[in-house]
């Protein structure tokens, strides 16, 4: 995280690379999940659901999600056609948000399968932007880091589910994310 914070500030110091493209690419990538409310909501929901499912899922989901996202990203980079990307992203917020809202305690394998399917869509959307970035490698660093930090934010909030009021708050957050997903799917948002 420190390296991520330092990178844009020091990009100009190392004259071997101008640094400008690296810094711009990193910032573009980092902001990509954050400027898409659908992306952001779904990533936080993954962290929420993982924390809700218990100790193993809390960390298995944030490990598995980026790796599967790489597959979707590769498809986006290669310019392969993937139908319904935006629909899939919106649906991820709806489905995972609902899972949190109704306190669905799915088996780990099922949770992984659901998250993996949606990870492909998210990865595709990010990967499709990569080749056009000022620095594609820095772009990848940025959006993977932002995705991971959103998961961690979801996990941190999801840990409140250990308490009674916290559980209500977490489920309410899940419901809110599900509503956002429904809004995206309906085209209202």
């Amino acid at each position: 995280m420190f390296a991520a914070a330092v990178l844009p500030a020091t990009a100009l110091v190392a004259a071997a690379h101008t640094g400008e493209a690296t810094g711009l690419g990193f910032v573009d990538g980092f902001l990509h999940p954050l400027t898409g409310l659908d992306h952001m909501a779904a990533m936080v929901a993954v962290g929420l659901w993982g924390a809700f499912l218990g100790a193993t899922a809390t960390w298995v989901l944030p490990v598995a999600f980026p790796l599967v996202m790489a597959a979707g990203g590769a498809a986006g980079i290669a310019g392969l056609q993937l139908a319904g990307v935006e629909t899939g992203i919106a649906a991820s917020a709806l489905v995972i948000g609902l899972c949190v809202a109704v306190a669905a305690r799915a088996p780990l394998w099922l949770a992984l399968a659901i998250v993996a399917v949606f990870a492909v869509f998210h990865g595709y959307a990010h990967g499709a932007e990569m080749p056009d970035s000022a620095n594609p490698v820095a772009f990848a660093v940025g959006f993977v880091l932002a995705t991971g930090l959103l998961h961690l934010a979801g996990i941190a909030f999801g840990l409140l589910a250990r308490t009674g009021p916290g559980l209500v708050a977490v489920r309410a957050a899940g419901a809110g994310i599900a509503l956002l997903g429904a809004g995206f799917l309906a085209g209202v948002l």
Partner: protein
Amino acid sequence: MKAAPAALLVAALLAPGRASAHAVFGDLGPFFDQLLHPVADPAQGLLLAAVAVFLARQPLASVRVAFAAFCLACAAAALTLLAAGQLAPGMRFSAALSAGVGLLAVSGWHPPVAVSLCVVVACALTAAALPGPAEEGAALLWLAGSVGGIALIVLYLWALADWARARLHPVAPAVAGAWVATISLLVLALPA
């Protein structure tokens, strides 16, 4: 005895050009260029992050030797680069290595010490060869900055991963390894 400092002060005032404490080594640009190269070159930074999370997942007894070997291998590769000129291993090779090491970190496998040494030495040789050749007349500064920057970045990221393992969750370095592997796999997917 008090006359000596006064004499020095007078001499400094009369000959300010002699006060060259900040110019002893000349232009330090090549040193800082290389010191911060891992931060400005995502490919090199990624490889070093992979090494750091790998080390964070290994027992301390094996990584003490591994880090020493890593630094020595860096120095050797940097010296070879100075002597031989451009040796750039290529972004795809370094990305493939980063992906492999990142996945090793995710797996949590504790390989024998010899295997750990091979892994870190391979990473060191690649990372040290990624920067371009040194400028004319700045070889020593280039070498110091290159090896120092690589070692410091790995040490710092390793400490960060270890802190996360101790304070957040034991599997935190594995999560970081997943991120490193993901970025590396995406880089591999970029068109040549």
